[in-house]
């Protein structure tokens, strides 16, 4: 019996959710080839840059940082989708999380490497990257960054893996190929009540532990900018501002992933309208938070009125960067707020459109942080502009394509929706939630000791 036949005979949850593992369509191969080719093109561009030095970029003095650092902040921001959102939903006992946590956690683990590699691509001497450990200088925010991203990657990989063990054990028992992979990854797990209990306690601990780690990652990235004296970088709000922005873009990325998975793997019964509605509400909350932070940041700069700060501010509001600034405002606030504030547009299409706008807007936000400040140093106002070279744009496209490629491959080896958590939801949660709601209601006066 082939794997396909095995899976076809299973009950609905297992049949639908394991189907991508055993059946691959032609469209999948076409997209995978396209993504792999783009990623390879990005790799070629990097090889070109290695030979030519950073002269192959459009960077200059004083535009020392550009696309790579923008993409660094952007991709690490996207990585907050998964672990943070999934952990918060788990800790909050949000029952609608069950079908979305796995796809979210996969985003985190797979995108974080693509984000973390960006500053290495940006190095003038990538051959000396290990000096960061050999000659570590504890006061450098860049070192804190290496540590917090390393910790976050480790923690979120464990946090992805542990809740996947029962599913891996089930796949192993079904005998789906490759046998060795599932035998190895299931580490001898047997789904007994005591094993399940231990697993759930471990997940509970991990979910709590991973939240402060995730917060630290984007805080430190904000500090990389904020701890310099540069106009509009030197801002105490940057730590929390970056964390909110990261969660914002992460939610948007997750919605896009859900919409695509739903369509290509026919998961309409699992990613339901209510999931998009609830994710849309999260997007609504974060878009309002984003506006609040952005307004607070720009008002403080404008009211303070320091010459160097104002030069940077006006270049964004009315000058050279007005287009990218106001496009960012439209993408990060106007579009998502207009769509998410109404129930009628909080369906699959509405949330997806809003999310695409948010992802573009959050890339622009990082552009508007990095470039205008760099081009407005305190002492000179040089007539310089920054135009990314084909190398930088190719590497950016390659990074995005590389992430999409590995995500596609992951859906072919691992169920992208947690099967055991769905089943647990069917079997236990309805009862548990009823009991929980009952426990919120007032007790009978006669039974209460005063």
């Amino acid at each position, binding site marked *: 019996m082939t794997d396909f036949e095995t899976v076809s005979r299973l009950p609905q949850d297992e049949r639908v959710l394991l189907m991508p593992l055993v059946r691959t369509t032609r469209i999948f191969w076409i997209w995978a080839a396209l993504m792999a080719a783009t990623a390879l093109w990005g790799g070629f561009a990097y090889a070109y840059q290695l030979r*030519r*030095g*950073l*002269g192959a*970029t459009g*960077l*200059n*003095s*004083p*535009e*020392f*940082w550009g696309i790579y650092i923008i993409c660094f902040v952007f991709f690490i921001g996207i990585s907050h989708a998964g672990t943070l959102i999934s952990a918060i939903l788990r800790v909050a006992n949000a029952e609608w999380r069950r079908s979305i946590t796995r796809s979210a956690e996969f985003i985190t683990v797979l995108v974080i490497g693509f984000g973390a590699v960006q*500053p290495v691509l*940006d*190095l*003038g*001497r*990538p051959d*000396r*990257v290990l*000096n*960061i450990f*050999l*000659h*570590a*200088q504890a*006061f*450098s*925010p*860049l*070192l804190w960054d*290496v540590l917090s991203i390393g910790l976050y990657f480790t923690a979120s990989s464990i946090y992805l893996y542990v809740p996947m063990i029962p599913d891996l054990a089930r796949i192993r028992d079904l005998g789906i190929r490759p046998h060795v992979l599932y035998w190895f990854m299931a580490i001898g797990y047997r789904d007994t009540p005591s094993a399940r209990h231990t697993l759930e306690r471990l997940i509970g601990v991990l979910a709590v532990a991973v939240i402060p780690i995730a917060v630290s990652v984007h805080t430190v990235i904000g500090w*990389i900018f904020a*701890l*310099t*004296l*540069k106009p509009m970088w030197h801002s105490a709000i940057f730590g929390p501002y970056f964390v909110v922005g990261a969660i914002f873009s992460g939610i948007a990325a997750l919605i896009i992933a859900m919409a695509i998975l739903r369509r290509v793997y026919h998961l309409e019964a699992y990613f339901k309208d209510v999931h998009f509605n609830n994710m849309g509400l999260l997007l609504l909350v974060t878009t309002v938070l984003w506006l609040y932070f952005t307004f607070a940041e720009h008002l403080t700069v404008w009211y303070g009125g320091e010459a160097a700060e104002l030069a940077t501010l006006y270049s964004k509001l009315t000058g050279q960067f007005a287009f990218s600034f106001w496009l960012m405002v439209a993408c990060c606030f106007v579009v998502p707020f207009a769509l998410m504030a109404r129930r009628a547009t909080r369906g699959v299409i509405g949330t997806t459109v809003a999310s695409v706008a948010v992802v573009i807007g959050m890339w622009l936000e990082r552009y508007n942080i990095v470039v205008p400040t*760099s081009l407005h*140093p*305190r*002492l*000179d106002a*040089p007539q*310089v502009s920054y135009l990314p070279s084909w190398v930088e744009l190719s590497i950016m496209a390659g990074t995005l394509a590389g992430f999409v490629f590995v995500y596609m491959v992951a859906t072919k080896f691992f169920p992208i929706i947690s099967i055991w958590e769905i089943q647990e939801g069917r079997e236990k949660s309805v009862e548990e939630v009823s009991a929980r709601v009952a426990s919120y209601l007032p007790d009978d006066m006669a039974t209460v000791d005063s």
Partner: protein
Amino acid sequence: MARWGMAIDLERCNGCQACEIACRSENNVAVGGPQVAREHRTISWMRVHTEIEGEWPAIRARFVPRPCMHCDRPPCTLVCPVEATSLDSEGIVNQIYARCIGCRYCANACPYTVKSFNWRSPEHPASTLPGLNPDVSVRPVGVAEKCTFCSHRLQKARDQARVEQRVLREHDYVPACAESCPTGAIVFGDLEDPTHRVAALAHDPRAFRLEEGLGTQPKVYYLSRRD
């Protein structure tokens, strides 16, 4: 312990840029050329900036030579992840080219924009090769560099003094820019030694420092009646 510093008299500076040229040839600064200049990637350790104040006819120009400020609280050294730049015991902010990973964080942290980066492999045309200074290492592609107060000259001066069994005198150690200045606008020495001219000039009523409010405590003082 000495604390090396510089005073630049803006009323004496006539903008001749001899300091720039002297610095280039002393420190083997790579020759860029017009293409590199168009790309805004020219490397220079000392640059004479022109400041224009007011509008015609009440217009005033002044020249401000700007080397590294050798701050006592340097923002660049703090952010370097590999300690490739640091403040030494005599107040010179030095660079370790062989350790630098080229992240350019220091260049971003410097409020004076005096750090340069080797975007490409540095070029030294054949005609300049005989003039290279053997005391200063050339920099490879991908590292940051900047003015060092010609600290190699300090090594030499100290060795010379030791050989002659005497203490270091004021004019034993002078960077190339100060040495070449035809109007004597650049004065160099030990800020802690009251017999050095620079120590007196630093306390001159005309003295000020760039962006003093940032708290970086630069050791390059400017002298100007107008400020």
